[in-house]
């Protein structure tokens, strides 16, 4: 009965993590380019035991056919890079990625980071994200007005006079789900993501859309349903614990 209590505690822990993830998803329901996460669970190991005196089993080894599972563990949290809805803003420096890939920005320490957030702002000829990180590869120095800028589907930045200001490059990874999130809508390359590779926008099925923003891919209804099921599962596990507790109390009642 004690093991049952601990199994139930792992279950409550798992549901709590799930709720944390759902809360974060919902908090970012309006965050540009945000990608939702989900938790993945697996059962913990099993103890194969047998009560003394019960008949010998045919399963090889000393282990009998009676086993007890020891609960659940969280295997990983997976970020889901499905496409978010694209919303029309008509702002010239809003760029949505339709398809795979990430923008590359330069962090304060000079290293690269990647983002799907395409709400840029111009300052002294450089494009910055809302969080203040400079977009790599493009300088619009000398442009008369940002309202004059044209960004093509392939990322070329020009103005109405035909002056070329470079190309917004997109980058992709073998395993985007392995990217490391560092907040501010930014992701870092990691061992799990694999090497970064530049996308050739002429070849892949990805386009850029000027005057549009990619919204988060969080579906509020789905998250609410997940929240309800997580809460109920949490309660169910707490019932295992109270049952075990009541039984312990009953045991205490054995001796008057």
């Amino acid at each position, binding site marked *: *009965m004690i*093991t*049952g209590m601990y*199994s*139930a505690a*792992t*279950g409550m822990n*798992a549901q709590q993590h*799930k709720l944390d993830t759902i809360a974060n998803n919902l908090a970012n329901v309006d965050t540009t380019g945000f990608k939702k996460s989900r938790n*993945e*669970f*697996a*059962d*913990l*190991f*099993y103890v194969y035991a047998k009560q003394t*005196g*019960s008949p010998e*089993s*045919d*399963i*090889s080894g000393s282990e*009998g*056919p*009676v*086993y*007890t*599972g*020891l*609960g*659940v563990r969280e*295997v*990983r949290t*997976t970020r*889901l890079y*499905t496409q978010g809805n694209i919303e029309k803003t008509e702002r010239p420096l809003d760029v949505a990625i339709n398809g795979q890939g990430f923008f590359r920005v330069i962090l304060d320490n000079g290293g690269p980071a990647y983002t799907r957030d395409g709400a840029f702002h111009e300052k002294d000829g450089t494009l910055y994200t809302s969080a203040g990180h400079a977009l790599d590869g493009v300088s619009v120095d000398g442009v008369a007005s940002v309202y004059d800028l044209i960004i093509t589907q392939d990322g070329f930045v020009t103005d109405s006079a035909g002056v070329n200001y470079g190309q917004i490059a997109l980058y992709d990874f*073998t*395993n985007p*789900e*392995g990217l490391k999130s560092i907040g501010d809508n930014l992701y870092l390359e990691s061992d*799990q993501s*694999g090497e970064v590779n530049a996308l050739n926008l002429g070849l892949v099925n990805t386009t850029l859309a000027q005057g549009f923003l990619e919204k988060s891919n969080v579906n509020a209804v789905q998250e609410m349903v997940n929240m309800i*099921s*997580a809460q*109920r*599962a949490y309660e*169910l*596990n707490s*019932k*295992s*614990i109270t*049952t*075990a507790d*009541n*039984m312990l109390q*009953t*045991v205490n*009642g*054995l001796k*008057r």
Partner: protein
Amino acid sequence: MIRGIYTAAMGMLAEEARVNTTANNLANVETAGFKKDTLAFSTYLKREMFRTESLTDEQKRYAIGKMESGVVLDESQTYFSQGSIVQTGREYDFALNGEGFFTVETTDGDRYFTRNGQWHRNHEGYLVDGSGNFLLTDSDERIMITDQMRVSSNGAITQNGVLTGRIAVVEFEEQTGLRKVGDNYYAQTSFSGEPGQNFTSQVIQGAYERANVNAVREMLNLITAQRHFEITQRVITTEDQLLDAAVNRVGRV
């Protein structure tokens, strides 16, 4: 009278085991592809009781019925019913509809079987599960992802229009003989037999299978376990009172 105490105690132990199993089922209510466990109990030391007419004559024994001395756990059984399938639209989520299993190879070369349908692409481009072990094709190869993949209901993988393999979905003659080893894996045993080619299960891309744990049934298990536990406790305290009477009051005038 003393024997009754032990018989009742065995009943309490059995209910304790039932709560342990139920707690594990409930803890895994959100584990993809998890299959719940149930316990089978059997009677313990069933034997004939005799009435002896004479202490000297062996022949004068009459059977008066059978007596069982409690209950023991016979075995744990995994209940392999289909779990509900949830749509995600994710490229690497595969649900199995039917009795089959995916085949997984660990980095050590061990083979396990799983119903878990949440797969990932690792940094080398291989399709792996949450623990980093490899999904195998029916020709025992790992699956390399080079392009967007489509998986048809028979497990055939198409990448960029080219057929690149088929996900191995195997079935066992006696799937209840499989052994749970944790991490959503099952190991084959002499009971389960060798994994065989599957013809009945469907692979559904963009969805995964949930646990087949039924909350109502598990709550019923908890209630019956607790009440049965209390009843058998009452049996023990009653026997204890009888003993008390026998020890402390018999012989007192």
